[in-house]
């Protein structure tokens, strides 16, 4: 698979480390009443989508950026690649 890095251009997927579902960006609030349940869901439960899925890839053998790659898990076709930073900001995260 070739991942079209937004800063570096097309890179071999072997340069990356795979983290998983991009929902992992949305860490639950540890002070919430139901924090234990929310963290259990966050850590252990997965949608495990068959089809288009947003996922986190880390460019370890490159610029060490985190990317959100939208990829089809049935065909391996990649439809969009963004910096995870931009995605997190768009979801209202601070830094």
């Amino acid at each position, binding site marked *: 698979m070739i991942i079209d890095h937004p800063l570096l251009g097309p890179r071999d997927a072997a340069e990356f480390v795979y983290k998983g579902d991009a929902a992992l960006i949305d860490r639950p609030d540890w002070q919430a009443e139901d924090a234990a349940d929310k963290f259990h869901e966050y850590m252990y439960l*997965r949608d495990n989508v068959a089809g288009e899925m947003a996922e986190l890839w880390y460019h370890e053998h490159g610029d060490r950026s985190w990317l959100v790659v939208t990829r089809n898990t049935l065909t391996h076709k990649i439809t969009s690649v963004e910096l995870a930073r931009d995605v997190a900001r768009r979801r209202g995260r601070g830094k």
Partner: protein
Amino acid sequence: MGYSAFKVFWEGLTGNKGWKPVWREPDPKPQYDIVIVGAGGHGLATAYYLAKEFGITNVAVLEKGWLGSGNIGRNTTIIRSNYLLPGNQPFYEKSLKLWENLEQDFNYNAMVSQRSILNLIHSDPQRDAFARRANAMRLSGADSELLGPEEIRALCPFLDFDNARFPIQGALRQKRGGTVRHDAVAWGYARGADMRGVDIIQNCEVTGFRMENGACVGVETARGPIRAGKTAVCVAGSSSRVMALAGMRLPIESHVLQAFVTEGLKPTLPGVITFGAGHFYVSQSDKGGLVFGGDIDGYNTYAQRGNLPVVEDVCEGGMAIMPMIGRARLLRMWGGVMDMSMDGSPFIDKTHIDGLYFNGGWCYGGFKATPASGYCYAHLLATGRPHEVAGAFRLDRFRRGAPIDEKGVGAHPNLH
């Protein structure tokens, strides 16, 4: 129809005209005591043991494709019980004991061959770790022994003992480990279940679960609704997709594992051999092909094919311990979809929905578990209690802080 040497001889003399199909192709009935979703190895084993050991024969096994078309037909056929943790080891030892008597039990030739498994040791700390594992294996009644380099040299003179980076210093051996003819396992269980009255219904995809008052009372299928006292899902590889029909999210990701087989060679390998410093394992089939594999690809996928970086990694592992494998030509390679769980261990459990049971999360170790998985699932379905060797395989174990993490890498399914 029973099998015997006389029957084979007689059929040979009479043109092999007396062989008949070994299971029926029944239409689904409107209702069963237990409906098993998935006619793979584990589902068929569950039906077989329900009928044989627990006397429950009003059972249907529903299969989307054809019987044994999933991972029972695309694995690397290794059986062993060399686990470390107390939640796992007794279960896999139970499985190995069932393998040892399987052919007599279901009167079918599954070519169970206890040709041993060697886990190579390449460093001092690894020897310590394997000595601990060898002791843990013995606690559950399994056999284990530590070999030195000279003993391995006598068995496998072709290994690269003096490799500059990963010299072979010894091995953990389980003599009772080995290989089995994987398709025959599905066929043998299917025949045994069918003979006892279980309906195996192929080309019958489950499209939903029937819910009444919050309980599961059957399934919707491509061939109409079927009511069931208990519904037992057993579809490793597709677990998340099927359980999503019941609104459940699972501690599972789907990943692809690739496997490879070379052209047929003369008998070369004495048993199964695994590389201790990378991920590579190899055995030789009775047809002569070297069957080998390594790591999963590492990203979520439902495609039954992988990518080249892992092919390279597996082949490097092979060349590191067994340079002669570079001379063999590759015949086939393929991929299978694995239920990778959050701790690398499986689930055999009731769900929070009454009447709905779940068996899955087998990672890439489901084949060796087939008999015990079926036996323990049947025990749970028949008695309502987990079997004593499968009591740790619960769905709520992460919430309780009780994962069974053989590798100790945490909630990263692609690292198990």
